[in-house]
């Protein structure tokens, strides 16, 4: 056993143990660590935005280099703070509208390209897609299963017609693919969390207590 003498290791370890204490039940140690996390994370965010955005992109160019065009984002940004003044709080809709409008507009071509065109390209039965699996002749079979799976899954989410007849069959196959997908995603997520847990235990038993190497 070789316990660490680094104060930061002790701080990290005690905060980690405090968070894990929630597994027993809600307690003051957990609440203390939780509030520290929120406070520090927000304090760090202030620093990040100040040093990486406000100073280099706004204050330096506007007040030191005289780029007067930046007065526009400065004034629009200030409008966010009108949220705290009830009489003019409606002005907060202006920066929200600009931000949301631009991102919503930009998301249309980007999402169509990434989520519809590219996904369809990867699904249709082409010799290129057959070879993409690196599975020899089985690549054709995997591609056909994938193609059928996508069509059937889409048919399951088609609610404009009652799920009877052909649509009933395809939607039934579709839900099978959806459930396998949910199960796989769940399993993968759990294992990712377990991996984080192993990391924390390695820190506690290795870096802090020095029990393992």
């Amino acid at each position, binding site marked *: 056993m070789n316990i660490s003498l680094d104060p*930061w*290791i002790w*701080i*990290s370890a005690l*905060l980690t143990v405090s*968070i894990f204490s929630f597994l027993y039940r809600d307690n003051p140690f957990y609440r203390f*660590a939780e*509030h*520290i*996390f929120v*406070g520090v994370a927000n*304090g*760090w965010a202030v*620093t990040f*935005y*100040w*040093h990486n955005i*406000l100073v280099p*992109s706004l204050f330096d160019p506007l007040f030191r280099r005289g780029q007067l065009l*930046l007065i*526009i*984002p400065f004034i*629009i*940004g200030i409008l*966010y*703070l009108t949220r705290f003044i009830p009489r003019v709080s409606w002005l907060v*809709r*202006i920066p929200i509208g*600009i931000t949301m*409008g631009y*991102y*919503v*507009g*930009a*998301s*249309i071509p980007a*999402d*169509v390209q990434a*989520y519809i065109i590219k*996904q369809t390209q990867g699904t249709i039965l082409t010799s290129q897609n057959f070879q993409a699996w690196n599975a020899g002749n089985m690549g054709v079979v*995997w591609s056909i*299963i*994938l193609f059928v799976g*996508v069509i059937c*899954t*889409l048919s*399951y989410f088609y609610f404009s017609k009652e799920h009877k007849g052909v649509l009933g069959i395809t939607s039934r196959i579709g839900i099978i*693919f*959806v*459930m396998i*997908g949910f*199960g*796989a995603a*769940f*399993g993968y997520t*759990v*294992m990712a969390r377990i991996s984080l*847990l192993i*990391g*924390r235990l390695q820190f506690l038993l290795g870096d802090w207590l020095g029990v393992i190497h």
Partner: protein
Amino acid sequence: MKKGLPLILVFICGILGIIQYFAPHPVVQDTDNFFRNNLLKILAAFALVLGLGSLLKVHMDKIKRKRENWQYSWVLIIVFIITSIIGLFGGVTGEGPLPTRIGSFSFDNQTIYDNVIVPLGSTMFALLAFFMASAAYRAFRARSTEATLLLASAFIVMLGVLPLGDRISPHLPSFAQWIMDVPNVAGQRGILIGVAFGILATALKIILGIERSWLGGGGE
């Protein structure tokens, strides 16, 4: 005015967001560049100020009214102020005017990030492993074919990524990978394409002013 102006701005900015992909004209590209690299970045920083203002207001209110667990709000506010002062005046790695080192003990912003935010963040997510396992134990019952499929695929994928899976059968890891690559992708892709159509419809509704819930309450 109170709702009309924001709706006009959403429309204009939404159209700019779309046409910058298709119009290489310098006016369009320069405007888009200004939006991306200046306006929206700066607005995001001010939005953070709004969020922090709301956070502090909620906790100050909690302290003032002595609501349940109000003492912890002091912890949050004090830690927030200390971290902000260290970061703003001490710089990210201690290059600012405020000293961020006592002897060999350094407490600059990067050190705080590495030793408080990173471990606490990963511990919070690691904690979810227990809750997910507990929820799965209670919820995963093989009551129907669909539930059995979900259970089986989750079990195979979990075993497949463990060294134990290889011990049970050397084919198990590759079968788990096949589940991830073929049926999982088929299901997820079907959902993704559907979601994309949903995003498309909602985006158009927002740009055209049909969807107005983001305006919140208040006068016309």
